[in-house]
């Protein structure tokens, strides 16, 4: 019995100490982590939206349960952005951030995260591929060539570009109804 209590006591001390260490390290790093995550979002907005000087992640309205981020230059609306998660990727969900100008034509697309095959599907993050979406509006057919559209799928991967095209299309539908309001 004595050794039983000794075991319980030892493991309790160890877990309490470990918990304290973790609390300490969390309190030291949490601000920096939050800052890094926000910087990443802001730089994504910078790369896909027309010029803006507000912070779109705080300036948004809800349309169909989707956040539509609004880019403003001194109060004038210059563009919109929507973040959608498309689950039709080859490796699972792809988080896509689509930006448009104030009329609803695509000004840029960014992939926030994905788990596509390295060397094949992950080419969807290449700038030359993402630029293919520029200028599309909600009335255009956005699809890969295999499906009768104009987006070039690259050799060995059709599913990833197809998921991206679907995600951009969905985003434009949301932005279009946001502009209409």
């Amino acid at each position, binding site marked *: 019995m004595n*050794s039983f209590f*000794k*075991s319980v006591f*030892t*493991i309790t001390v*160890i*877990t309490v100490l*470990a918990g304290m*260490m*973790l609390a300490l*390290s*969390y309190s030291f*790093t949490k601000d*920096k*982590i939050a800052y*890094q*995550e926000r910087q*990443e979002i802001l730089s994504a907005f910078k790369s896909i939206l027309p010029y803006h000087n507000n912070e779109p992640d705080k300036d948004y309205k809800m349309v169909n349960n989707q956040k539509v981020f609004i880019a403003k230059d001194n109060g004038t609306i210059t563009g919109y952005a929507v973040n959608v998660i498309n689950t039709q990727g080859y490796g699972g969900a792809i988080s896509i951030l689509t930006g448009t100008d104030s009329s609803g034509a695509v000004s840029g697309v960014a992939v926030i*995260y994905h788990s596509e*095959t*390295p*060397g*094949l599907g992950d080419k969807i993050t290449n700038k030359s591929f993402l630029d293919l979406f520029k200028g599309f509006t909600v009335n255009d057919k956005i699809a890969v060539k295999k499906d009768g559209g104009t987006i070039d799928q690259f050799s*060995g991967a059709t599913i990833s570009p197809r998921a991206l095209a679907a995600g951009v299309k969905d985003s434009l539908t949301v932005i279009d109804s946001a502009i209409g309001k």
Partner: protein
Amino acid sequence: MIKNIIKNGLYSNNAIFKQMLGLCPTLAVTTSAVNALGMGLATTAVLTGSNLVISLTAKYIPKNIRIPAYIVIIACFVTIIDQMMKANFYSLHKVLGIFIPLIVVNCIVLGRAEAFASKNNPLYSLIDGLSIGIGFTISLFILGSIREFIGAGTFFGMPFMLSSYNPLLIAVMPPGAFLFLGFLFAGKQFIDSRIKGEK
């Protein structure tokens, strides 16, 4: 003794090529040189820290609960490293993301705790953790560099081949990891047998 520990960690008892431990992260993250290096260094940091703490505390931990106690200590180090990487090397953390928490169950770390740190003094354990970790890092780095070089034609993301080079994609895909690890194993066996033969 110290010289022996270092030699064991780096070569003769190398985590991957001799103990054949930690093959899961080895196969998964070595798609590029920088991923391999990041994973190796993170593991080294955990290994050094856990080896030191475990050798200091081993005599107070009753034998029957030593494994859960070691795992708590290792998990604590891994979480701290995870948070520090996220705060300071955000883009690397994004790539290694899911593999960092898995260091907890990396057999190398628990293996060293059980086989070495719990039986040796803190100084030796620290050096053992460091040299096993560096041996692991070097092995990952070699495998990662080869796979990136052949599979993408780059080194640390910089183009290294003629632009006409058509990358052999299989090298960066999962089957490539097994193939190239197999070649490295064969290479090490060859070197070892040559050394033995000369004696």
